[in-house]
């Protein structure tokens, strides 16, 4: 079993072959699914927890504080302790809540983010499924999360929750457009929706450099719109703790609350991954044309590290937004989308199409 840190295709394929050789095809597929499921679940939990930790540390440093520093060295196990606490916490039973929907909502939210992970290429040959409509799939799946939020707000029979849910609905429906259009801009450039192809195309230069101005604009738009789509500050109107206490998850406690909480961070991770993959070349190392030695050094860094590093930078930028800006009001939120982001995006798509048509990109 060849394990090459730079190209995991042979590694994954050898597992695939080994399974098919010992098991009948149905059970081989089932076992593969199980392995992938467990692996992604573990990844999900670890990333979710450590994003919470990272967020707390980042905001602490921005605010001249130390952040979590009691559990473990530098508070490294703080979020694990928090998770254990949430696991043991009482699930408060809301008498007048719609029980089915109330219990279902956190699962819908977490499933949406869970599904989206499947299509993301973590390294060369390391992705659960390489759909030929990868981007389309991610957009479609990640927007189902809003159903969970709406259900949560509706079913908890709380006025604050309802306001939060309605805000969230309006917000995600509008910002979905900008996310989609800014990705379409890049799809025009790459000519493919398959994420692996998009990454391979960036071997000689990331799209953000290749696509001139339209690529940069669409990156900025994507960053803003995806921050809004994940309900994070300054667009955290659905939670808006100074207005609506905790918005749609006011009534949730214990592990159900943890689901919402983890899903928020995973959504952030997913959109950051998409941004890194589509604009910054995913796991592709940084290559600068003509600098052979430099490119060679960059090639030594494993793709997975590149991928994680790029995602981390995008996440850090999103955190930077959150801890700097005040929250928008709902009408400003919508006018930002419909009056600014959407027209800019539409013009940008045209511009990009024109550039691609004329062959002006690198």
């Amino acid at each position, binding site marked *: 079993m060849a394990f090459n840190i730079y190209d995991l295709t042979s590694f994954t394929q050898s597992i695939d072959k080994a399974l098919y050789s010992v098991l009948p095809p149905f059970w081989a597929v089932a076992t593969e699914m199980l392995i992938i499921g467990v692996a992604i679940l573990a990844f999900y939990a670890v990333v979710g927890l450590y994003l919470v930790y990272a967020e707390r540390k980042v*905001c602490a440093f*921005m*605010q*001249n*504080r130390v952040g979590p520093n009691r559990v473990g060295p530098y508070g490294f196990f703080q979020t694990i302790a928090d998770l254990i606490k949430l696991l043991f916490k009482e699930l408060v039973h809301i008498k007048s809540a719609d029980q089915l929907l109330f219990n279902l909502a956190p699962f819908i939210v977490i499933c949406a983010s869970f599904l989206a992970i499947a299509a993301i290429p973590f390294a060369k040959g390391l992705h659960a499924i390489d759909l030929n409509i990868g981007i389309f799939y991610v957009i479609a799946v990640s927007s189902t999360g809003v159903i969970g939020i709406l259900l949560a707000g509706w079913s908890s029979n709380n*006025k*604050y929750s309802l*306001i939060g849910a309605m*805000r969230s609905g309006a917000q995600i429906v509008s910002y979905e457009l900008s996310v989609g259009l800014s990705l379409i801009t890049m799809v025009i450039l790459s000519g493919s929706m398959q994420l692996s192809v998009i990454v391979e195309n960036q071997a000689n230069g990331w799209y953000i450099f290749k696509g001139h101005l339209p690529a940069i604009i669409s990156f900025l738009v994507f960053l803003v719109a995806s921050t809004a789509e994940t309900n994070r*500050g*300054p667009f*955290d*109107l659905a939670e*808006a*703790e*100074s*207005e*609506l*206490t905790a918005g749609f998850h006011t009534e949730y406690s214990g592990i159900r609350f943890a689901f919402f909480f983890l899903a928020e961070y995973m959504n952030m991770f997913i959109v950051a991954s998409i941004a890194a993959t589509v604009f910054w070349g995913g796991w592709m190392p940084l290559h600068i044309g003509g600098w052979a030695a430099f490119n060679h050094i960059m090639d030594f860094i494993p793709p997975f590290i590149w991928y994680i590093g790029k995602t981390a930078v995008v996440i850090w930028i999103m955190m930077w937004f959150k*801890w*700097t*800006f*005040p*929250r*928008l*009001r*709902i*009408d*400003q939120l919508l006018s930002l989308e419909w009056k600014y982001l959407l027209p800019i995006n539409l013009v940008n798509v045209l511009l990009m199409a024109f550039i691609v048509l004329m062959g002006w990109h690198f």
Partner: protein
Amino acid sequence: MTEKLIQEDIEHEEYTINMGPQHPSTHGVLRLVVSLKGEIVERVEPHCGYIHRGIEKMCEKLTYPQIIHLTDRLDYLSAHMNNHAVCLCVENALEIEVPERVRYIRTIMDELARIASHELWWCSFGMDLGGLTCFFYGLRDREKILDIFEETCGARLLLSYNTPGGVMYDLHPDFQKRVKEFIVYFRKKIKEYDDLLTGNVIMQQRTKGIGFLSKEDAISYGVTGPSGRGSGFSCDVRKHRPYGMYHKTDFKEILRYEGDTFARYIVRMDEMRESMNIIEQLIDNLPEGDFAVKMKPIIRLPEGEYYQSIEAARGEFGVYIISDGNKTPVRVKFRSPNFCNLSALDLISRKQKIADLVAIGGSLDYVIPDIDR
């Protein structure tokens, strides 16, 4: 009554929510019954009294020096000004002239307390708008003032530093140095405040044109302090009925005429700068002398009525004492600025959004213990 309101709401297809008593943006235990139509606030009904302690009634049982420590607990952020008001009232009643040094000390302390209070307002206002980082920057700088207070007064928040006839202790030897250091430090930091929040486009859009309070309404509702001055109501007691050293210092009364949330914001920001100017004028000229005049062990106010108002951080704070010649007053009434400011909340937040209600509440800067007394 609330039941009636809810019934009315059902008829008008309105949506009643309780903001508070436990709510992040009411800054304490204030309950606002808000009627909404979607996101639009139709009316706000403040319900106060959750922490009413009957301080005015308690004062009727206490001697005048003992009243002072209770006034700390009104508007705890301008504790020093509240003490100052009571002391001035007692001194005026007894016709005592306090030494010049005392007046200097009190004025400097008042202005430091005002800066500290406005800093806390700034950070909580930022937090009301959703910019959580503001909160920590504001508190970080306020801490420096509290350290100065701690060094001289022995307490950080509830100072009880004034006594009738002077102050408790003389200034700490390091006081002047520390205050000057602070001013140099804070002039740098206030620029940062502007960068972070004042100039921010989101903040400006959320505050400009929101919560309009006209000058006539400000006067009629008795909205004083920075909130009133944001509407162009010239109500600075420091200018109109000078006390302490204000008649000898050169300072501007900050006035804005827009009357919206942003105007109230800018007035407070400018007041911090103006307060620093006042301190700078006074800190180098501190006269030598006693820090208190010798008072009789038991203070008896001559029979009569006495009113003294001072400019606290949130507006005109008044003390109205009726004495019958005994060592305890017959009636003490505190004119609380926040109580009057709160009464205008309903007027200015109608037809605004929920988020605006929070911003307006932040810009009125109410401190609940002062409302409830």
